[in-house]
């Protein structure tokens, strides 16, 4: 399972890549692997304001429908529109073509609450301890 060192993670399996005051958000390799083949994605529109832990979308795989939760507070600057037509990119490239949103950070202190790659991998379900 791929967990890039340069990203931060939420307990609900979203990743965050920070550049300046902007953060790109997607779901982790672990999450896409758990869900299996993703067949549908619903995302909000640019301009909407997200608060920490707000549901921001829904992903459907052949096995489950799962709500997505915002790891940060901020305004949505960009939505990965092509991904809506090709949600399978979440499976094949979760940290690249599978990105979902770019958000303008409103409360950078929230970044301290996110997990490092090592901390994310230590979570029991990610580490495979059932």
């Amino acid at each position, binding site marked *: 399972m791929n967990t890039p060192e340069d990203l931060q993670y939420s307990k609900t399996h979203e990743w965050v890549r920070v550049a300046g005051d902007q953060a790109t958000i997607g779901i982790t390799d672990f999450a896409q692997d758990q869900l*299996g083949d993703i067949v549908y994605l619903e995302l909000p529109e640019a301009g909407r304001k997200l608060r920490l832990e707000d549901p921001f979308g829904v992903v459907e795989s052949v096995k489950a429908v799962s709500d997505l939760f915002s790891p940060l507070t901020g305004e949505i600057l960009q939505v990965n529109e092509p991904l809506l037509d090709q949600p399978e990119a979440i499976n094949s490239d979760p940290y690249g073509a599978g990105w979902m949103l770019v958000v303008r950070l409103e409360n950078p202190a929230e970044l301290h609450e996110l997990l490092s790659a090592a901390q994310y991998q230590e979570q029991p379900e990610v580490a495979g301890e059932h």
Partner: protein
Amino acid sequence: VGTWRLIQDEARSGAWNMALDEALWESVIAGVSGPTLRLYAWREPTISLGRFQQADGIDEAERQRRGFGLVRRPTGGRAVLHDRELTYCVVAPESALGARGVTATYCRIQSALREGLRALGVTAEVIPGTERGRAAHASCFALATPADGVVAERKLIGSAQARRRGVILQHGSLLLDQDVAAWEALFGPGNRATTLAEVLGAPPPPLEAVRAALAGGFATIWATALETGAYRPEETRAAAALAVRKYALL
């Protein structure tokens, strides 16, 4: 694992059935109710669609002619014809299932279903399906994924899961018998279902026996007694609102 509530529900309309499942889900998410197993039937034969499924591939005129219901589920997947079947619904935090993640929770619930089927005399091996991918077929019973229970490559139980804040809503349909002609009239060729009647080589057991066996299977695998209970008043109120505002509309 803690105590589970068992609701042996009556046959209801599609809108009420989905509204009650979602009301239970919200109630468990809110921490008002504990883990719950609901077993139910449908007032009239009803097609349930996956949460985001287009109704392409289903003959709508035929459905109306037959007077079958139509409802959208809060879970994903493809269409299910609920007729001559029993539906189970598990609503529980992952912690109550003793499993984490999609695959592990499916496995846990499948173990309970298998245990129930054994009690009904099913000796055939019921295994998860192995097909992956994006089904072109409208019906859930034309494809078997690891979420499903399969006997000799034909699907006996079709299941679907939704997850919100660590709480799982999983429901599924166990076929007692099937009307293949109705299925084909609605969905066309491609039926890959099997039924309890076919697996047992006998008329299907009465619905009450299937209810009892499945509840027993969950109790065995959970290693806990299920306490037969009812809906909380706030769950019924929430369901009434959801039935009218959400599930009565497609």
